[in-house]
């Protein structure tokens, strides 16, 4: 039994059915713990005041925005190489979530930037690359929506995802060129020295886990819906055939 067995639509439906409620509950629990702990039981930062608490939404959303694109890239590659339909549908399902995550990151960033930097928007490398990422998500979803034939749509969006990834990385480094970083460095890394203070660190871990679980839940749900939609289409097609 290989890992690809799980990509069979029937198998996928079978294993994802019990998984969805579990991840949903876990996501709700971790998000609740993280947000309540973060919002009400951590001290205000001595310079940033209460605005520091936006970190609990901003950082996980930004992480997810990038990682979802990577997941779409992997799913697109799987579709191109092995042509598993579930993989293509999963990529499509993830894209909208990624779009929303990017939007959350941009908006929370703007809300935080207004009092802290004195500006909601600045043409600054990190912000700009996120805006470009947002445009990439938009284009990807628009291409999916524009093409009728689902297989062609899956093919073309996969190619777009591959090429787009290269250009997204290029853009990321191109905007660094302006060289006027206002955004602080990474809040988290495995190298402990750079991390934010422990007081903020542990609730943050909870919300990050919550966002990941939320994404998994939504992605599985949307993929299941897409598979059902595909089955419905097939049934309707068969119905029409037998009528004729």
């Amino acid at each position, binding site marked *: 039994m290989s890992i690809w067995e799980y990509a069979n639509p029937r198998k996928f439906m079978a294993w994802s059915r019990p998984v969805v409620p579990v991840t949903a509950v876990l996501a709700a629990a971790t998000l609740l713990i993280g947000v309540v702990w973060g919002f009400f039981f951590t001290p205000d930062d001595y310079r940033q005041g209460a605005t520091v608490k936006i970190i609990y939404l901003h950082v996980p959303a930004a992480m997810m925005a990038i990682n979802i694109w990577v997941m779409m890239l992997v799913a697109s590659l799987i579709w191109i190489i092995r042509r598993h339909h579930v993989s293509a549908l999963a990529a499509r399902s993830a894209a909208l979530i990624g779009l929303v995550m990017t939007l959350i990151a941009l908006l929370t960033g703007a809300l935080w930037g207004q009092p802290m930097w004195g500006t909601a928007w600045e043409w600054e490398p990190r912000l700009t690359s996120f805006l470009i990422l947002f*445009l990439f998500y938009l284009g990807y979803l628009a291409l999916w929506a524009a093409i009728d034939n689902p297989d062609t749509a899956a093919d*073309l969006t996969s*190619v*777009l995802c591959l*090429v787009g990834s290269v*250009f997204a990385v*290029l853009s990321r480094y*191109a905007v660094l060129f302006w060289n006027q970083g206002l955004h602080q460095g990474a809040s988290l890394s495995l190298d402990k020295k750079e991390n934010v203070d422990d007081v903020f660190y542990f609730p943050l871990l909870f919300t990050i886990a919550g966002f990941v679980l939320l994404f998994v839940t939504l992605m599985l749900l949307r993929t299941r819906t897409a598979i059902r939609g595909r089955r419905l289409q097939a049934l309707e097609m068969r119905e029409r055939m037998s009528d004729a």
Partner: protein
Amino acid sequence: MIRLFTRDLVLAVRAGGGFGLGLAFFLIVSVLVPFGVGPENELLGRIAPGILWLGALLACLLSLDRIFALDFEDGSLDLLATAPVPMEAVVLMKALAHWVTTGLPLVIAAPVLGVLLQLQGSAYGWLVLSLLIGTPALSVIGTFGAALTVGLKRGGLLMSLLVLPLYVPTLIFGAEAVRRGAAGAENAVPLLLLAGISLGAVALLPFAAAAAIRMNLR
């Protein structure tokens, strides 16, 4: 392949499409900018590199949907797909023809429009050079976008949405090279990066575009 190239060239010139239209668009954009921002020479001179690059990019975008659309409608794209020439070569020739009919005239027209926009004297050489290096990338990336949307009824708007984010790095490095050149600063780095993008796009994107066309024709 050369036949295909000359055919596209002749078609473009005779149909009166991309050739004049792109140039006219470039002219109008450059003329409209002073109306929009006001006739202050100093301000215009400062934003001229960016405006000229942006105008060239938009003019390029305008003529992209012609690359494959006509051939798709009359069925010659199907013939090209079954021809002994590989699809990648067809795409490359199409992009080359697009560059010669759109990119090259833009490069030649840019200095003239630079006068209108009060471009600084030291920037003309850099403007032409950067456009010369950068427009092939615009053509090839655009060809990829056109290949993605070739089968669609109203692909033009969608194509802009797909292609414009891909143009970001080219635009940044191109305009930056001119800006630094105008200020007399060191600009070899953006120029080299621009050349890198062009060469990389010319080398790799025809494969992606050809794959997209095959998927669309299936």
